């Protein structure tokens, strides 16, 4: 049984169909890729998997649980965390606080622990803080760590988005175009880190339009188009597919 299994997922917004029976699965410990033209339904698929809305039909199972109708936090509790394509975050909270909020099972967050300072709570909090600082450092966010999110550049917000997913250390991370807007050099370093996480056992699914990056990281790659699964295969199989080239990659013109 796959770690994440999506079966025949269908959804329409105001009668406009967006997902037309998506089948999609990710095995445990995989670093899966998800690509497809703009508007194919990739983010919408993530939304359904993570619980932003309940799909019209179809099922989502994760780690043996049917999560189709669960609330978002229940899915997180099972170990499924996502990032957003349009970076969101808690705007008035600092980068540090934003990161800290993604630490899972932080015992310090209980009211009583907060009020009376339990030992375990304090330890959990300190461990999370150390982790948050390390992640911020890796993402080059040290010097803005105390900035509220509203005072970040567009790329920095995307970095925080990545950072939050890293904080969670879940079973599986769904990344939605994390690198769009991130400087290429930093992208490489983050890619290395993600690969390391994956090696540590965290399953990752990545939506990206940066084909070289997908090629570097992902196997297998699933292609979504018009709300359906077009194909699934290795990166090379995918880019050599004519339909994919037609719909997604486009013929490459030489620039004068």
């Amino acid at each position, binding site marked *: 049984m796959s770690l994440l299994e999506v079966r025949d997922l269908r959804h329409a917004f105001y009668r406009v169909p967006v997902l037309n029976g998506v089948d999609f699965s990710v095995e445990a410990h995989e670093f899966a890729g998800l690509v497809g033209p703009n508007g194919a339904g990739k983010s919408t698929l993530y939304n359904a998997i993570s619980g932003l809305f309940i799909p019209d039909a179809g099922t989502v199972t994760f780690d043996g649980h049917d999560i189709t109708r669960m609330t978002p936090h229940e899915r997180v509790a099972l170990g499924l965390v996502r990032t957003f394509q349009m970076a969101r975050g808690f705007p008035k909270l600092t980068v540090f*606080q934003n990161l*800290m909020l993604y630490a899972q099972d932080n015992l310090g*967050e209980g009211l009583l622990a*907060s009020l009376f300072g339990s030992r375990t709570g304090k330890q959990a909090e300190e461990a999370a803080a150390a982790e948050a600082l390390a992640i*911020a450092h890796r993402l080059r966010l040290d010097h803005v760590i105390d900035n509220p999110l509203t005072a970040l550049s567009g790329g920095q917000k995307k970095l925080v988005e990545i950072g939050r997913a890293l904080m969670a250390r879940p079973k599986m991370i769904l990344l939605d175009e994390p690198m769009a807007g991130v400087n290429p050099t930093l992208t490489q370093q983050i890619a290395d880190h993600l690969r390391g996480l994956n090696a540590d056992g965290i399953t990752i699914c990545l939506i990206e339009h940066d084909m070289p990056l997908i090629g570097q990281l992902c196997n297998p790659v699933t292609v979504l188009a018009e709300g359906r699964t077009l194909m699934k295969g290795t990166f090379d199989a995918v880019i050599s597919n004519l339909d994919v080239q037609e719909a997604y990659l486009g013929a490459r013109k030489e620039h004068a």
Partner: protein
Amino acid sequence: MLSYLVFALITAGIYGILALSLNLIWGAAGMVNLGLVGFFAVGAYASALLTTLTGMPIWLGLICSMAVGALVGVAATSATLRLRGDYLAIVTLGFAEVVRLVALNERWLTKGADGISGIPRPFAGLLNPAQFQIFYMVLVLAIMIVAFLLLRRIDRSPFGRVLKAIREDQELASFAGKRIVRFKMIAFALSAALAGLAGGLYAHFQSYISPDHFQSLLTIYIFLAVTAGGVGRPAGAVLGAFLVVGFLEGARFIAHIIPGISAVQAASVREMMVGLALILILQFRAQGVLPEQRLPAPKR
């Protein structure tokens, strides 16, 4: 004059507790409680009825006013905690109205518009009125300070951080794995308990309460206090409460200085000044006098 100041401090202390209550729910968790005065009233009636009807000791009455405030608060709002903020605002507004109507019309319980008089005062037999006032001032301010310290602790704690996250974007908070309904419920219960406690303290100070005591004007005052003092910071809430009481009382003296105006004009000048003062504060300090603090990350 001294006893007047003592009295004003008691009032400010009670307003301060209410402001702390509002600041917790609104400033930290972003839930707009337009029915604050309703919880204040519930607390006041709870302790007043229990102590007068069953002879319960006052300290127990005060604890009950917290418990009843919290219970009623959660019961009234649990249905809306999943919903967006505006609806909580309306529901709490309605709650306060219902409390007022029940207090007014259910005579068998609340004695209706007559109100409940003869609510016991602590140590009333031992102290003369002046001593009692001073004792009560110390009591109220001490409770306020304890509440302040606890709330400041919450404000800076991981729990407070989650509340603030819910305030900023509750949907996203649930994607961060937070059980938002649970957090909101705890916060609301805590806030309602505090408002109830303020009500209980008020009842045992005044020894008389009636539906007229609990007009929405008080909610407005507290909102003004929290806004002027600084939303999202317990110290701001307390400062704001003292500022508002200062304005309310100080404006009396100024209004009387203006020559040639009638009593009703003086009264309107007084209220105008209160409105104006708050607008002016906000013009110069839109975030309030003591704006929300951002805690720096620990050093590596």
